[in-house]
């Protein structure tokens, strides 16, 4: 009983060290998220997971779970904020979903559907972000980068290669490649890298296999992201109950 908090009225058990997001997902409760990935240390930059705790709004993926917290997540107010954040991300980059290889497998797009984002809301920024097609097997289409940093961490921490980094500040922030030329071909990047797999959107793409998985049979075609994310979340090991 001591290791529980309330999420939208439900009791959520947690282990010390877990964040609100981790505990919620493990207990089968979905909080929308984009930059959080169960295999990496929470980053806290997209702010889609914003919840309200005792009247304060904060990111649930980085907020340590504490006994007795009263957390609101699935409210009209918070979902409206999330909708605006998704609209901001769509307007910031160049996202033409119908022609994107990631369509149907894309977390941003899936969140857009799930949160019922019907229009982009803001004027588009149309940033100029040239693609990097230098690598024989991989295409980098920076137009869709949402700066979640997952590839940066995956490449550094799992692949041990430091292929990606962030540069610039504010709206000029962008992803760069660790090579004097700045080109992916001049790195040790490989299609088997973890960084290849973590990108939630359509930036890091395998060449020559485009659309091999037909639209309609993709990850978020079958079920909404709110259901899929729960399936992907690490569960509390059987027999280890916190109620």
């Amino acid at each position, binding site marked *: 009983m001591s290791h529980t908090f309330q999420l939208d009225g439900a009791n959520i058990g947690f282990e010390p060290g877990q964040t609100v997001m981790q505990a919620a997902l493990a207990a089968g409760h979905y909080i929308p998220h984009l930059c959080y990935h169960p295999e990496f240390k*929470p980053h*806290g*930059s*997209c*702010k*889609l997971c*914003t919840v309200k705790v005792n009247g304060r*709004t904060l*990111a649930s993926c*980085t907020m*340590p779970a504490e006994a007795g917290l009263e957390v609101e997540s699935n409210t009209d107010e918070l979902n409206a*904020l999330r909708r*605006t*954040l998704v609209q*901001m*991300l769509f*307007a*910031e980059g160049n996202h033409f979903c119908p022609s994107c290889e990631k369509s149907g497998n894309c977390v941003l797009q899936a969140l857009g559907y799930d949160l019922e984002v019907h229009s982009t809301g*803001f*004027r588009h*920024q149309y940033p100029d972000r040239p693609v990097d097609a230098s690598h024989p097997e991989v295409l980098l289409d920076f137009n869709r980068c*949402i*700066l979640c940093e997952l590839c940066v961490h995956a490449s550094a921490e799992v692949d041990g290669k*430091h292929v*990606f*980094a*962030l*540069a*610039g*500040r*504010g*709206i*000029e*922030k962008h992803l*760069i*490649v*660790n*090579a*004097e030329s700045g080109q992916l071909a001049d790195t040790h990047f490989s299609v088997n890298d973890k960084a290849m797999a973590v990108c939630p959107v359509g930036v890091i793409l395998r060449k020559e296999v485009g659309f091999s998985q037909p639209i309609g049979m993709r990850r978020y075609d079958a079920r909404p992201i709110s259901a899929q994310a729960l399936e992907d979340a690490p569960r509390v090991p059987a027999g280890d109950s916190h109620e």
Partner: protein
Amino acid sequence: MFSCGTSVVPSLEPILLKHGNDAGQLLQILTDVQQAFGYIPPEAVNRIAAHLNIPLARIRGVASFYSFLKLEPHGEYRLLFSDNITDRMLGNQSLLDEMCRQLWLQPGKVSEDGLVSIGLTSCTGMCDQGPAMLVNGRVITRLTPQRVREIGDLVRRRIPLEDWPAEYFVVEDNIHRAGPLLSNPFTPGDALRAALGMGEAEIVDAIKRSGLRGRGGAGFSTGLKWAACQQAPGSEKYVVCNADEGEPGTFKDRVLLTRQANWMFEGMTVCALAIGAGRGYLYLRGEYRYLLEPLQDVLQQRREAGLLGRDILGHAGFDFDIEIHLGAGAYVCGEESALIESLEGKRGIPRNRPPFPVTHGYRQQPTAVNNVETFCSAALALAMGVDNFRAMGTEKSSGSKLISVSGDCARPGIYEYPFGVSVQEVLDDCGAVNTLAVQISGPSGICIGPNEFNRKLGFEDLPTAGAFMVFDDSRDMFEVARNFVHFFAHESCGFCTPCRVGTSMLKQTMDKIAEGHGTRHDLAEVENLDLVLQTTSHCGLGRTACNPVLHTLKHFRPAYESKLKSLDFEPAFDLDGALARARRMTGRDDAGAHLKAEDV
């Protein structure tokens, strides 16, 4: 002065050596390289990467975060005009235009001969003696058309900066009202001696009893902060003094650093004694680089006087020393956790909290971060006795406070008051007349109108980090807010979605309104952006970035509405403007080559 090609490599060795070949010193290394070469040449990036064994992209990532570091040449002379609203009110824009004419140059471009570039920079902290500019990082105050012409001439003649007239670089203190902090009657060592007579817990207790609250803005109890640091387990502890002073309109730390540096270092040393720290850092904003050598001299004097170094004042085992780190043009680095990241040589991104710096700060060790004025006040409280300190000011805001007054008034400068002084009193003292509004505590603070001038400065009513910008009734408060919105967009670190995208969109919408294309729909959008910024941003920058607009909309809505078109919708995209290039190419400018508003 500026070499290129492979010749950079030999001059890199001493820089790397000076910083102990330590990747944690990357920002300091890059700052020195920038200073030596006028930019950070590609060969230097390669060399540093190889030498420190870090990815090249990390160096590019750090360098591109800070405004004063450049990965491409930016001219032998880089001229940056300070662009706070107070500089604007003093005519910086026409001076910039004049400079561009003088040097045949467009803002943001480097001249073809690589001689010079001209641009804007955020508030340089010279609001009481603007308009100001930075030339290769050196501040020049009190610009006039005459001075601008002279500077243009010096640049064209390639006169080295060291040989420019000394009076350009004079920074005055402009103290108009002094109190115990500025007319400090104590001698260095007094506070330390008082502290050495107490135990560690007693010092913290005394600071708690003094009621001292942080002077950097948030007003957190200094005693509680030190207590948390003292109790936190850690192999090393650190004291960090925040001299980033980036909030536009604030320049009181500049004067304390000039006049009371010894006393500030004394406060840091007392803190070190209380929490058990062996090392301290002063994080000095790049704009105040001219204070670096004088500050180092003060540190040296303190070492010689036994007030710093080993066995301080003869107390065996009380070892503490202070190092100065330079910032490089990033307002967000004033936020304490971003400051720590920057001290560690990284991009200045605010950390996720908890854990807080008091337990996991510099190098993940317990760290007390305080403002310049807080350390000065802590030393003062101990030297004068905490009860005497507490007797100054008000119940919840003890002590005195430095106010940086600028804008429309006869006597801009520094005023020290006990907390509780009313806005009207300050206005009277500085000779402000026909005042329309006062911006308290900078763009992230609050804007008040005449019906609130009886309010009092202090944590009970109007908390302030010190900025006090005065606007008289000739000013357009919409333009004031627009300048602040530009500031936040420029300074957003870009980490979180709401602030990265939101400040930029807010800027575009404010510009659209300023250009006369705004509609009611845009005002609604501004209000929506404000809400998202305020509730979902990662740090105080984003959470307060909407304040200028919220407050001016509240008090001065007509200033916005008078600029709106009566239309409910106006495209963000200027269709007729987009045809300008085609018109130029075809040499046409007749009515048929324009789209009329009603067609659009």
